[in-house]
């Protein structure tokens, strides 16, 4: 088993290609790997409860740990209480932590 950290900086409203990252996260989990998906920048926009975000919901359902950068959330006025179930706010330190621990880290 490998450990992966996928960083998604884009959002599904502006970029269809977000489906690549979401799908990759699900496929890696299905293959038995440990996967965290970190939403940053506009990537946090689908994490607001009530958003049309079926793709992100599927990622959460697949068992991927989904984190949202607290700085990006504040920048966009998304309070923690407005996050959809299954998304945890996080400090960006988590990326450095995972890199230091040797997780394969990919940015999209």
């Amino acid at each position, binding site marked *: 088993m490998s450990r992966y950290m996928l960083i998604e900086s884009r959002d599904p*409203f*502006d970029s269809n290609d977000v489906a690549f990252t979401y799908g990759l996260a699900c496929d890696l989990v299905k293959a038995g790997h440990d996967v965290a998906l970190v939403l940053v920048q506009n990537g946090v*926009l689908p994490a*607001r409860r009530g*958003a*049309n975000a079926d793709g992100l919901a599927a990622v959460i359902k697949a068992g991927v740990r989904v984190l949202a950068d607290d700085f990006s959330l*504040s*920048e*966009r006025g998304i309070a923690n209480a407005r996050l*959809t179930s299954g998304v945890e706010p996080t400090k960006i330190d988590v990326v450095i932590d995972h890199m230091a621990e040797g997780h394969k880290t990919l940015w999209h």
Partner: protein
Amino acid sequence: MAKKTLNIVESAYRAVMEEQDDTILWVLAAMQGAGAEHTVVLRANAVNYAVAGQGAPGMAVGKWTQTQAPKMDRDVADLIEKRKMTVYVIVEDVAQRGIEKRELMSGIRLLPRAALPGLYEEHAIVSHW
């Protein structure tokens, strides 16, 4: 008399931390100061600029700290209140992002997508940013 210009803004949060504002809203405000007559429609992710209560703390890199971090709702309010621009958000784009209408700042106007052609006809120039 200046040409009435409709500005459709979709780019959002691209360089706001580095510039301490949105460069598109900034240039529209600056042009208005020079005599331009602008109307603004926030669409796509830019509808989030109309959400009240946003703004990250300033960045910090070692001993360097940012003291004037942007607040995009403040800048939209400036367009509406100080510069007397009409600013719309596309209602379908607001809904798609799960933004509740009560979360929007005061003074913002809601515009259905279907109303865009009529708005286009009211302006001499239409610019898509």
